[in-house]
């Protein structure tokens, strides 16, 4: 197995709450980026044939029509392509175009003709066609104004039975569609069917898909479980209904955990599944089980790097009131993957509380790192922390630490954070933020700097006292020595 099962670089931007029921699968003809897609990626490296099919038909993220054409002519050995193939090829590009332009009717019209590829004399074409038809067709049916759940269901049922290769994949995506439409029971029935489906020897790609089907079923069960739990929390404990409800919930969890465990053991990104699984385990007091799941999800090297795994683990440990050292080690990894995550503020506070000096230094680094990101520029907490921490550190006479951080930021932070424009707009929008920023600016750039000066000039009676204080601390601690 390749170490990166999910192609998306898991660095910038946390992927918390990917959500189980994302309906975007229908778009993957045009934009392949979804649940089903990484299942494909996962199943890819087992047979040569599969790999080839996936890379030319669907697996690749970028599609070059001309390349496909070129490959086709190579494959036919320069023989003249039949006009039949030209028709289907032209149809395919017309459908793509229509889909891009959201002309669903037109797409359906060309689809009508494209379907004949299922009768191609070329058995290769015949085998690869169903998948393309499924993807295009489901996309059309998903958006077409005249389409309905029934039409989609008939289409899916028909497509499932064309060849055996696509049964599981289509079942899975069909279920996702049903979930999207809120038909949870139907979806669950669908998944159960897929789960028990077998064709010939159970190949590993099939196993993967069956696991996924199971896990989705588990997710649906989790959903009804958590709904019941909510209801239960509303019930009075003395209520006679309480005990039966509670029993119901118990029987639920056992089944669900079986559904999840197979999938979770295979490397991949399974956020929604892991999250719900852990929630259920915790609910029943199986803390060890939950910890085990989360630890292996975060630390197993076979799994792709996934910030959420660490976030889940951290939150779990926090709930468990784990020792600080443990929490720090989790967050340290998260810091390496996503330095802009909001948990970094917690990380900073933890580091500040630590006794070790290197932790104190790291605390400064973390804050600077966080504010490097455009998404965090208006995070007042971060600025507040930085202002107070800078003051503290400069008070402790550790100018070298500050200088070290400032060195690489000196030529871009002024324009990025402390421009005249920002001074004006920050003051207008959020005076507290402007105050904290001004304090930082003053300490880093000296009292002559325009951001600081601008804020200083603003005469505001609520902040008058604070600003005075600011002036004082800047005078005292700025790393820039005033020009004599």
């Amino acid at each position, binding site marked *: 197995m390749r170490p990166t099962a999910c192609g998306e670089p898991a660095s910038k931007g946390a992927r918390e709450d990917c959500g189980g029921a994302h309906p975007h699968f229908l778009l993957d003809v045009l934009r392949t980026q979804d649940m089903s897609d990484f299942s494909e990626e996962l199943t890819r490296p087992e047979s040569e044939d599969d790999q080839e099919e996936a890379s030319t038909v669907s697996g690749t993220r970028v599609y070059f029509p001309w390349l496909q054409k070129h490959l086709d002519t190579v494959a036919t050995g320069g023989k003249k392509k039949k006009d039949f193939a030209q028709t289907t090829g032209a149809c395919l590009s017309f459908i793509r175009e229509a889909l891009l332009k959201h002309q669903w009717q037109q797409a359906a*019209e060309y689809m009508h003709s494209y379907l004949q590829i299922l*009768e191609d004399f070329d058995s290769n074409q015949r085998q690869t066609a169903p998948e393309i038809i499924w993807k295009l067709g489901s996309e059309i049916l998903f958006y077409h104004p005249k389409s309905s759940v029934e039409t989609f269901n008939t289409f899916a049922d028909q497509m499932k039975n064309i060849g055996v290769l696509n049964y599981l994949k289509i079942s899975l995506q069909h279920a996702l569609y049903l979930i999207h439409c809120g038909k949870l029971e139907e979806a669950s029935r669908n998944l159960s069917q897929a789960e028990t489906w077998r064709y010939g020897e159970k190949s590993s790609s099939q196993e993967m898909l069956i696991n996924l089907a199971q896990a989705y079923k588990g997710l649906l069960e989790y959903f009804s479980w958590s709904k019941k739990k909510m209801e239960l929390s509303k019930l009075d404990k003395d209520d006679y209904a309480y005990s039966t409800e509670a029993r119901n919930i118990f029987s639920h969890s056992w089944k669900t955990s079986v559904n999840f465990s197979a999938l979770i053991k295979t490397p991949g990104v399974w956020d929604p599944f892991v999250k719900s699984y852990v929630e259920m385990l915790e609910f029943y007091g199986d803390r060890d089980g939950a910890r085990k799941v989360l630890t292996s999800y975060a630390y197993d090297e076979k799994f792709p790097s996934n910030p959420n795994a660490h976030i889940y683990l951290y939150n779990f440990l926090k709930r468990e009131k784990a020792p600080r050292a443990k929490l720090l080690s989790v967050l340290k990894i998260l810091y390496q993957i996503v330095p802009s995550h909001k948990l970094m503020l917690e990380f900073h506070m933890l580091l500040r509380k630590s006794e070790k000096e290197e932790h104190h230094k790291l605390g400064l680094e973390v804050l600077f790192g966080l504010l490097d990101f455009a998404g965090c520029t208006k995070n007042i907490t971060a600025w507040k922390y930085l202002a107070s921490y800078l003051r503290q550190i400069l008070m402790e006479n550790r100018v070298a630490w500050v200088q070290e951080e400032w060195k690489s930021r000196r030529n871009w932070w002024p324009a990025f954070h402390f421009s005249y424009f920002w001074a004006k707009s920050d003051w207008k929008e959020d005076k507290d933020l402007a105050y904290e920023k001004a304090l930082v600016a003053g300490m880093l750039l000296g009292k002559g700097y325009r951001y600081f000066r601008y804020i200083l000039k603003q005469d505001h009676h609520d902040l008058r006292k604070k600003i005075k204080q600011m002036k004082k601390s800047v005078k005292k601690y700025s790393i820039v020595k005033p020009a004599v």
Partner: protein
Amino acid sequence: MELEEAKELKERCSQCDAISWGLTEEGKYYCTSCHNVTERSKEVINTDIIPNTKIKSISRGLKRKSKLEKGWDWYVCEGFQHILCQQAEVLKTLGVAPELKNEVLHNFWKRYLQKSKQAYCANPVYTSGRKAQVLKDNVHHSDWASGSELLSDASCASSLESGAESKSDVPTPKPFPALRTPQSESRSVPAVAASVCSGSLDGMEYSEWKEKGILKMTVPGTLALCYLSLLWQREAVTLSDLLRFVEEDHIPYIKAFQSFPEEMKLYGRDKGIFAIESWPDYEEIYKHMFEIATFLDLPRFPDITEDCFLHPNILCVKYLMEANLPDEMHGLTHQVTKMTGLGDVDSLTFDPIAKGAQTVKYDVQAIALIVVVLKLLFLLDDNLEWSLSDLAEVNNEKNKTDKPWFSFRKWYQVMKKSVDEKKQNWEEARAKYLWKSEKPLYHSHIDKPGASKRREMVVNLQKQFSTLADSAPTIEKKSPSSFQFHWAEDDPSRPCFHGHSLQGILVKKGPALVTKNSLYWLSTQKFCRSYCKHVTTYEESNFSLSYQFILNLFSFLLRIKAALLHDEVSLIEKKLFKKKYSETKKNSRSRRR
């Protein structure tokens, strides 16, 4: 007695009380247990099955079933005959003289069968060599040898008709009495063997048939044969017209086998013979036509004289109209035709037996003449045609009462738009074309359920998507027409240039008119001397944009490759500037006339 079981009768037998009825040949019910025949006869077929009724089938039921599945005994050439027959019928409805079918095409076909030794000869191929390998019981072969006696006019006349009428419910199907007279019983042994991989009796042998000097018929071949008949009749249909009619689905070709009678089963090897997955290609059909004509050893065709549609003078008028060019240009094409000798009867008439025989691509030639005239008038060097247009437009501004001068620019703008539109529609129609027949084709009986299932699936899915498509079918079938464009004087969206004059392009010099432009460039200096059939090579980017546009426009009209038209232009120039060609071959671009 041939008997059939009858499930629909529920009464008890008056003699033995059993409910077990069979059906006699006369359609009367009889009891299968006591063989008592009733007076009742079968009326309505009741499809319901009554589960409690005991049904006994008589042993010959099995044989009957296999027979049904097998369908009629038929030969590959009969299939072609059927297709030809349909094609001829359509041509007739298109307004071609009715003799085409019964006299010309029929005779050609007969001659083909004879020449290829498939029928009308003392020793048809099937009795000698090929069939003997499969047949073990040669007893009946003597019957076939006598087939030559059947070459009487009486039976011939009906042979083409029967192809079309074979759908009628003749109890023992013998649709082609003029061919062999097979008795289905006698051939049951080899027929079973043959039907394993083809529905026709000889599909297997036919597809492997390789004999020197024999031209095998193909589906494209049927079109070539049709064109030969049209040419013989000197009908007003060019090859490109014929192929366009095929493309527009007027003439049966791609799914022609679909209209075979139900009993003519088609599968296995027949698929390779009759299933067509490409549009007919101009050059390919042209080649076929030539091969067939020589194979049939046809005599000189009727003369193409000046009053024939295929004569360049007339065809040029047609294409000038189609391309929206001024009528006055016709005088010039006429002159070029004369100077090059392209209008001579001898060069136009097809004579397959003559040495170095060559058919003229009438349509391509006429268009090429027009291109040459356009070059003479406008030079088409991306420069002169535009400055002449400026002149014309200035004049038209000033002078609104007279006949307007022809402006190349205006014409280009109109044509470009119309052709682009047409091309777009054409591409869309091609993308929407349904290639597969309603009857699925399969390799063998094992394959049949799969193929039928696929067909069913496709039909179901198609139904689903067609309800989602635009409610109004966008492409209704156009009625066949020799013209693809219609220009109208008073319609601003497709203005007509036919009445525009060439003034400003032609200059009066003494009593004669001379073209203002005195330059000309030759499309090619070098003709390919090797044995490949290329005349020249056409590298688009080497030529002016106007020339490219004109070639693309006309080649789209004819549905041919631009290179083919370019070749033809070069050939005409070679004749027109014979002297220049022989004089020097040094200068390449422009030279004085």
